[in-house]
């Protein structure tokens, strides 16, 4: 493994019973990189993220993760342990704690941390970043709009101070303007925080604008990879995702 690699997957496969949803995928995330994972409905994007955090059990291949504490294999770890190793996973559908207040959603994101004072400081930081969340901090998070919930999901994940952030289709179900706003914020965050991001999207255009590199999944296999600029220029991507 090269220095500065956060996650390296080799021949990663994952199944739901008889259905193999991910087939021998190999990919790598460098420290501080934003990597897009693209693909149509059912291509296996969510499955890839679930394999990384251990939310799906039938996983084979190798999955080497390097944290500050050293290298370890993520095969067979439980989701709660992935979080403890610094991997924040915003699931598809945002995973909002709908009955908890907005503030409690953020606090729960910091559950793996013990540094009280710093947690309070981070809370203030995220309320400053997303003033809409601050206005509604005591309201149940389930009452937020879709866009607000996505911002909350990102902030909740960042409250962990993760080393690796996994985002599953943050644009899903949001109006174009809201998506633009969200990605602008993500763009600012990447410069600010230097967290490594694996960004799952069907919306290739907007994902590649943010990402350094990308992989394209088709029926569980990685069929294309390259820098964001290369992928953007590829005919297949243009046809498959950009409707041109």
């Amino acid at each position, binding site marked *: 493994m090269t220095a500065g690699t956060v996650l390296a997957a080799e021949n990663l496969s994952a199944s739901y019973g008889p259905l193999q949803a991910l087939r021998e995928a190999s990919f790598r995330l460098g420290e501080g990189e934003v990597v897009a994972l693209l693909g149509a409905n059912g291509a296996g994007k969510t499955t890839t993220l679930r394999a990384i*955090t251990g*939310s799906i059990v039938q996983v084979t291949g190798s999955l080497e993760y390097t944290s500050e504490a050293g290298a370890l294999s993520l095969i067979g770890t*439980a*989701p*709660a342990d*992935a*979080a*403890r190793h610094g991997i*924040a*996973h915003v*699931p598809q*559908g*945002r*995973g*909002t*704690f*709908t*009955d*908890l207040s907005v503030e*409690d959603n953020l*606090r*729960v*994101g910091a*559950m*793996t941390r013990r540094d009280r004072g710093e947690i309070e400081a981070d809370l203030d930081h995220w309320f400053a970043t997303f003033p809409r969340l601050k206005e509604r901090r005591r309201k*149940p*998070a*389930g*009452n937020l709009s*879709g866009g607000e*919930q996505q911002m909350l999901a990102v902030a*909740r994940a960042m409250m*962990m101070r993760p080393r690796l952030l996994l985002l599953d289709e943050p644009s899903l179900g949001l109006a174009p303007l809201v998506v633009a706003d969200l990605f602008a914020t993500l763009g600012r965050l990447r410069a600010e925080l230097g967290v490594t991001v694996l960004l799952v999207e069907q919306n290739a255009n907007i994902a590649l604008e943010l990402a350094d590199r990308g992989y394209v999944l088709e029926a569980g296999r990685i069929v294309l990879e390259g820098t964001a600029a290369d992928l953007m220029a590829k005919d297949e991507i243009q046809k498959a995702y950009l409707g041109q």
Partner: protein
Amino acid sequence: MDLFIARIFDGIATGALYASVALSLVLIYKATALINFAQGEMALCGAFTVYVLAVGHGVNLYVALLVAMALSAAGGAVLHRVLIQRFDPRDHLPIVLVTLGLLLALNALAAIVFGFEPRRIPSVFPRGNAVAFGSASLRWYTLGVLAVSVLTLVGLTLLLRRTRIGLSFRAVANTIDSAQLVGIRVNRVIGVSWALAAAIGTLAATLYVSDPLRQLDTGVMERVLIFAAAAAVLGGLDSLWGSLAGGLTLGLTESLVIGYVHWVPPELGMVVALLVLVLVLVWRPNGLFGAASAARV
């Protein structure tokens, strides 16, 4: 009039205890959306533990109660660990069947060890009356159980609202998948709620049978569990304060109906309680205090 007041007080005392047992049901329900049907029999074992310590071995009653609550908490955590944790908390049927099996097993165990002869537990509260209204009187027992129920409720509310474990508990109660992803060890949190529920159940059962008008026997908790479950549903199943309201409503209804409607024999008290339950649920499907869960997007 005096008789009426006396019946109100009786209803409050019994209702407060239904509420405490309901609280232990609600605690586990909030974490897992499941009713632990063995809760009553677990509490029965706790009350027998108090009996063995206090009456059998002459341990101070309050020490015996605290020890029994601690043992129950440990027992609750172990039962969860050994019997419940092996099942996916999202898959309800196997767990419900296990708790039903546990109900029967614990009841049989108590019968084998203690037989069917009723026992007496010394009164936890001073005997006699705190205040008298004419010939009606408010017993220390009634005041005591009401105070204990309310204090338990306040304590639990603070635990859930103000502490880290409380926040984990509320997160698990809301959505298990997301709770795992933020690093919460879900099974541990559910185990803690089993421990707490068991301790509260033992407290409630001991207070229930320590009424000088009642006795401890292996059948005593069946009835209490049914009333407590009804109280929990009445309160909305996921509301702590709702279980107090539900418990008091049922305790009062039972006491007044049996007291005044003479063609209803005492044995039918339970049916009356269930009738109230059905009526309330028709009027308010989420119970008196149940929040219709916020929209899940």
